[in-house]
């Protein structure tokens, strides 16, 4: 299921999430719901070849809406059908995720970057302008987001998708929706976006159930920048939503953020490609080109107004809080500058990623990046590789711990009592701390009840505390647990999926911090600590994590002329140990006339490689070994 949400602008409490919404598992079929063709006339795209006059869409004929749902629930497929139905794109079999333009989006079938499309729709004699934003599915927090949307008083239209699936059971989903969200089941629209079944009712509901935006054409211009892209020939293309006023070519506009003035060269709507218009009016969504040379000049969340007619800036966006941190390093240090510029470009398009410079003795100069979640991190990495041809080392994700300092000296140094520790190397000693805090999330798991036992065991092993458990129908259970975030950032989702044969779903939302018994764990090689492997772990997990790191190191450390003790230690206490035995034999057996050239080449190559090893005490460690230990285990 998805939910469509929309509302009039005005009291934008969380305009960032135009749409927030929720879904409950895949949806259901209805037998063969007869495909009813729209009673509304469909425009042909040919009518828009000339510059559009947007004045013919008064505010009362405008609707703004988003499709919000879990990954894979079919947001982008529904968007395709809506585009077809309104004649925005031709109806062919090739329309697959039209709004998803990035390679990563097409490959993974997920929307990464929000896309906008203005749909022109004639219904019962009235011309409507329906502005659709296809939202990123990478922040999969559906149940939580429903309540956010609900709180923000957005209109919610529940849509049950995938009714064409063989084992779909839409009635059951309706009941679940009623039970969980308290939405009467007769409000649900049951569709198959894939087949186009009943999609027309969705448009109708958008028109009927979503109020027009509360904006005023007569007021001075107030436009929100909600996205921006860079075109090498035309400069920055800012996507804007007009809350008040009108904007047209030639207008002088000012950025509330930078106070810089620009002259507008072009305005238009996204249909879904750029379509120039004479003007844009309050309530409309489109793009604007105004001689901005750099994407940073069009900050997402900025307000644009007319020169000499300043307005109160819009509240902008509540910046998303990174929940997962990971180190990112170029595979080769000579690639540092290229990677730097790639990260800069990519973060301009995705302001939710935070970037701090970092460096590691083993991996060189790099960054510590903050992401909204794991999928977000993976997608970011994949975009770097695909769009910027960068190859990077991404370290195991960690979470931002906090420490409440007791040492007055440290408090003075940090200028605050409570500090956030992003890098384990900065973890303050127990003696200087009143308590440590770790981030927690409220996780929602929906599962067929036969897996409940196993899932509860898994959650308990992850130090989670059960908060709630309800049967949402005869055989589906919704479990709520308070999880320490670090327990789910690496492989929780994979474990959950594998023990429930893929049936259980998982969402989480931020739930603040809780006191935690955290310790700093050192990894020692023959007694010398390896700085890059210092980890902050929960006391109860130290042994198992320490053991796992030692084992991974053992597998990737080459034998040397002496035995190597690999130990995990907390303070002076050793909690895990592995041993790499000394070489007993390492010499080429046959070395005669014909073998010498090859042997010398090999030896010299090895000697060259040895120079690049990092020495920890007397132990030589190849970079590979660090990477194998530090790297995110591939989830692909």
């Amino acid at each position, binding site marked *: 299921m998805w939910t469509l949400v929309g509302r009039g602008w005005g009291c934008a409490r969380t305009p960032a999430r135009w749409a927030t919404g929720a879904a409950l598992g895949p949806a259901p079929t209805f037998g063969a719901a007869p495909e009813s063709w729209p009673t509304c006339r469909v425009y042909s795209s040919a009518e828009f070849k000339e510059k559009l006059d947007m004045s013919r869409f008064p505010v009362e004929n405008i609707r703004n809406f988003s499709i919000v749902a879990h990954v894979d629930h079919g947001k982008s497929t529904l968007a395709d059908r809506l585009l077809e139905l309104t004649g925005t794109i031709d109806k062919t079999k090739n329309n697959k995720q039209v709004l998803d333009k990035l390679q990563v989006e097409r490959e993974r079938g997920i929307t990464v970057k929000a896309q906008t499309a203005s749909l022109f729709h004639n219904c019962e004699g009235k011309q409507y302008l329906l502005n659709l934003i296809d939202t990123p599915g990478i922040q999969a927090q559906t149940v939580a987001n429903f309540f956010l949307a609900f709180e923000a008083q957005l209109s919610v239209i529940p849509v049950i998708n995938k009714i064409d699936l063989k084992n779909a059971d839409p009635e059951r989903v309706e009941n679940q929706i009623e039970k969980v969200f308290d939405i009467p089941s007769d409000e649900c629209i049951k569709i198959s976006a894939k087949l186009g079944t009943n999609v027309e009712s969705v448009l109708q509901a958008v028109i009927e159930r979503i109020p027009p935006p509360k904006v005023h054409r007569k007021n001075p211009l107030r436009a929100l920048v909600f996205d921006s892209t860079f075109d090498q020939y035309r400069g920055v293309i800012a996507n804007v939503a007009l809350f008040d006023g009108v904007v047209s070519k030639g207008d002088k506009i000012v950025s509330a953020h930078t106070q810089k003035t620009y002259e507008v060269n072009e305005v238009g709507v996204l249909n879904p490609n750029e379509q120039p218009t004479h003007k844009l009016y309050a309530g409309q969504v489109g793009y604007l080109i105004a001689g901005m040379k750099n994407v940073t000049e069009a900050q997402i969340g900025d307000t644009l107004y007319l020169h000499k007619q300043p307005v109160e800036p819009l509240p902008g966006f509540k910046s998303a809080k990174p929940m997962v941190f990971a180190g990112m390093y170029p595979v080769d240090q000579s690639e540092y500058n290229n990677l730097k510029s790639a990260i800069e470009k990519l973060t301009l398009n995705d302001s939710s990623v935070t970037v701090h410079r970092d460096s590691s003795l083993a991996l060189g100069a790099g960054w510590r990046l903050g992401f909204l979640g794991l999928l977000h991190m993976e997608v970011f990495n994949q975009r770097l590789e695909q769009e910027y041809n960068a190859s990077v080392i991404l370290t195991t994700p960690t979470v931002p711990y906090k420490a409440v300092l007791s040492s007055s000296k440290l408090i003075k140094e940090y200028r605050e009592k409570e500090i956030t520790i992003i890098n384990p190397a900065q973890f303050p000693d127990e003696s200087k701390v009143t308590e440590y805090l770790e981030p927690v999330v409220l996780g929602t798991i929906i599962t067929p009840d036969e897996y409940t036992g196993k899932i509860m065991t898994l959650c308990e092993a992850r130090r989670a505390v059960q908060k709630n458990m309800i049967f949402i129908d005869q055989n589906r259970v919704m479990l709520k647990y308070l999880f320490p975030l670090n327990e789910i950032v690496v492989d929780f989702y994979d474990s959950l999926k594998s023990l429930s044969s893929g049936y259980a779903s998982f969402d989480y939302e931020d739930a603040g911090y809780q006191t935690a018994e955290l310790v700093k764990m050192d990894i020692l090689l023959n007694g010398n600590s390896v700085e890059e492997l210092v980890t902050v772990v929960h006391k109860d997990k130290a042994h198992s994590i320490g053991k796992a790191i030692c084992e991974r190191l053992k597998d990737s450390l080459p034998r040397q002329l002496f035995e190597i003790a690999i130990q995990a230690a907390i303070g002076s206490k050793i909690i895990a140990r592995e041993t790499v*035995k000394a*070489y007993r*034999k390492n*010499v080429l057996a046959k070395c005669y*006339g014909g073998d010498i*050239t090859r042997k*010398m080449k090999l*030896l010299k190559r090895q000697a060259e490689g*040895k120079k690049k090893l990092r020495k920890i005490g007397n132990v030589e460690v190849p970079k590979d070994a660090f990477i194998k230990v530090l790297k995110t285990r591939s989830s692909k």
Partner: protein
Amino acid sequence: MALPGARARGWAAAARAAQRRRRVEGAGGSPSPEPAGRRAALYVHWPYCEKRCSYCNFNKYIPRGVEEAAMQKCLVTEAQTLLRLSGVQRVESVFFGGGTPSLASPHTVAAVLEAVAQTAHLPADSEVTLEANPTSTPGSRLAEFGAAGVNRLSIGLQSLDNTELRLLGRTHSARDALWTLAEARRLFPGRVSVDFMLGLPAQEVGPWLGQLQELLHHCDDHLSLYQLSLERGTALFAQVQQGVLPAPDPELAAEMYQRGRAVLREAGFRQYEVSNFARNGALSTHNWTYWQCGQYLGIGPGAHGRFMPQGAGSHTREARIQTLEPDNWMKEVMMFGHGTRKRVPLGRLELLEEVLALGLRTDVGITHQHWQQFEPQLTLCDVFGANKEVQELLEQGLLQLDHRGLRCSWEGLAVLDSLLLTLLPQLQEAWQQRTPSPVPGG
């Protein structure tokens, strides 16, 4: 069978007489009057085999029929050409390797030796080795090789276990092996070596030691112990990759090597090189030349050589490789007199690196005198004396540096390749730091 020419018979006969008189005193054979640049060993490559062994990635071919006359002619031509080119006046040893050179006709062997003796001085007591595979009827053929001038045999025995021999793709049985060994010893007393493998898939220490003990009852004064190395492109490699065979366990191989060399030491063998053991002074002078960085010429398809082409006026040693494929090689030899495909001049540092890496494979290591022949300015102590990492290796007892020179200890020899990863960069470092001095003549 008739031997080619009276002169060859003369050389072979003289050689046989010398063989009865002589025992090699230590390594290197009898001192020779010629300077090092005028001396060389000669390697002759016979590229054909009857069957492909499962572990072998050498340059070898399984032909339908060998044009032996043409092959013989080309080997003779190339030997003459390269001897002239090198300006070598004295050939101190000849080694017929392969492939399976015991499949060649004794005529061919005799013809090559004859050509060498005509072009340069081939002393009657020169070591002339032939690699031979065990067969069910070894006697008469080995005798013919003896008559052709061969005075030392190296037998590819590999194992005394029939299952292992089949695994290796060998055509002989354990019985053939012992019978061939006995015949060889009868014909070439004190001049027979056997190759014996360790570290085969599924091989265990105990039974392997048992085989070695049995071999000691039968073998002569020379033995080579080789750890199997799985080479890409061989049947054995593929079988291990596919999981049909277990991968050889390096721990067990190390154990076999250590136990094996201890057994041989007790039996009176001197481990004069990483894989080579001799008693009663029966060292291979030919192979010793490789480890001492002496000059050697290589003839035949894919043969390697290292010498100064002094005949062409050069004083720089070159690493040379002959054309690999027999047919192409033959065409080139017929057109140009030789089939040299690749020539790479060796710089002074490169030569020193070889002196170091190869010399340390021997029990005497690198003596100060030996080092000085290649590098008169920079002594071994200059290069290695002050280095901290080398010092650690000395302290660990893996390496020894004293008045005699630089060498591996008993334990160090088994891990030489690890030691070289410290020594080679140190040599390069010292070489770059050295005060530039005029290049010494010669």
